[in-house]
């Protein structure tokens, strides 16, 4: 089975099956939707961020395993971080998933997101992995919607 595909690692399958922080966070201070019109993936990111720190985050995803896992892992990485720290995480994740250069995986730096690096080999699926992060970016900016387009 391990040859089935590098993309569908156990970590991804586990997050897909039981996403962390997957229920809407209501009330919240910031919220943004992500939508991929090509495949119909749809998610909402909720934040409780009274000041510079995100105290709580949730990501509710209707979509494929890649988008669900990415959103779920993201929530576990963001909780308790400051806006500056999150900005850096977003950049690191984008470089990991879409950067021109083959990334060097650093398990401390990338955490469970490293499991999604396999998506680089599937150009049609990269947007599934980045969708939650785009929505997070929009939520922080106070925008209400992010798309992958």
């Amino acid at each position, binding site marked *: *089975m391990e040859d*089935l*595909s590098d*993309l*569908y690692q156990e970590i991804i*399958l586990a997050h*897909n*099956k039981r996403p962390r922080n997957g229920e809407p966070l209501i009330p919240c201070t910031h919220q943004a939707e992500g939508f991929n019109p*090509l*495949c*119909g993936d749809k998610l909402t990111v909720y934040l409780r961020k009274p000041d510079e720190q995100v105290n709580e985050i949730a990501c509710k995803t*209707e*979509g*494929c*395993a*890649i988008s669900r896992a990415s959103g779920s892992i993201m929530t576990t990485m963001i909780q308790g971080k400051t806006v500056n720290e999150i900005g850096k995480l977003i950049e690191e994740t984008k470089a990991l998933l879409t950067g021109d250069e083959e990334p060097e995986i650093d398990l401390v730096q990338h955490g469970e997101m490293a499991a999604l690096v396999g998506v680089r080999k*599937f150009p*049609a*699926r990269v947007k*599934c992995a980045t969708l939650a992060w785009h929505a997070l970016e929009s939520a922080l900016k106070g925008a209400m919607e992010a798309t992958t387009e």
Partner: protein
Amino acid sequence: MKEDTDLRKDFPILNQEINGKPLIYLDNAATTQKPQAVIDRLSDFLSKENANIHRGVHYLSMNATTLYDEARTCVANFINADHNDEIIFVRGATEAINLVARSFCNERLEPGDEILITEMEHHANIVPWQLIAGENGSRVVPAPITDEGETDLDQFESLLNERTKLVAFVHVSNALGTINPAKEMVEIAHRKGIPVLIDGAQAVAHQEVDVQDLGCDFYVFSSHKIFGPDGLGVLYGRKDLLNKMTPYQGGGDMIEIVSFDGTTFRPSPERFEAGTPNISGAIGLKAAIDYVTNIGWETIHKKESLLMNHANKLLGEIPSIKLVGTAENKVPVLSFTIDSVHPHDIATILDTKGIAVRAGHHCAQPLMKRLGLSATTRASLTFYNTVDEINQLTETLKEICALFES
């Protein structure tokens, strides 16, 4: 009659590996692969015979004109049109529908009028009507389908009324494989004097089409879905209707006399073929039709029903697979869902095994909504597929279920 292993050899693209595995091409509803005969014909034409048509008195131009006309005759015979002039070459099924919306409907639609379609249409048979209806204050009405994916004929009939100016429906559904009872639906509409367009994009590669027997007023299809080149499609229209329609686009070849006081137009088909058409495409389509005709429908049907029965049986044995579209009368299109796995994940994993399928809404969002789904995975078969390919599809699907359900 050729054995089917020989037929498979006619398609050079099938003989390759994808992701280190032999290609299993099950996306024939998106586009079909091209037999060597079509590839060679295109190559020959471009290497030795290329010229513009209708314009030169030189040998190559006259020869290309003859070849282009022969392609038209070939298509007319293939769908049993009464006249060659009833065959118009366009860019694809989509353009053919847009042409009818512009040139036929535009002048006939008044505020409050209706165009009746069905819930199982491809976006190509929805959006052009919405655009034209939006400009005229008329509207597009969908006839309901059953949960099995068949048109509800009683409701279809009851939705026809004196405001209905056109009926347009898919002959064979790309998302479900359903074969609509086209002849009966035409009769129902004609009893009320309403003209009918049939979207045959998915029909022509699977069954004999006889437009006179169907009785339809318009029929459209695309060359690329019947083993021919892309960028070419066919609009069949009844001659008496075509010659009363306004041109679709203006330009060279479609005119009689051009002056700054006014211009007069040639009859069909030239009236609707402004500018230099897709000459090589038409010649390639003729090669594809000759190829299909040569195999014969009997061989194609036999192979396709063998494949469909086998696939239905094997997929039916996997408890977590739900088949979507279980009409009695179907072409070998298998749309399905697996409860715990998103269609895009299924398609990506199948791709790693060299198996090409389509996942998504299949350009039929209203149909997906009607069925309460956001997407399905679709394996669409044709005569060059094999029982072994279906076995491999099924084995991989079982692995996927196990992986996601563990």
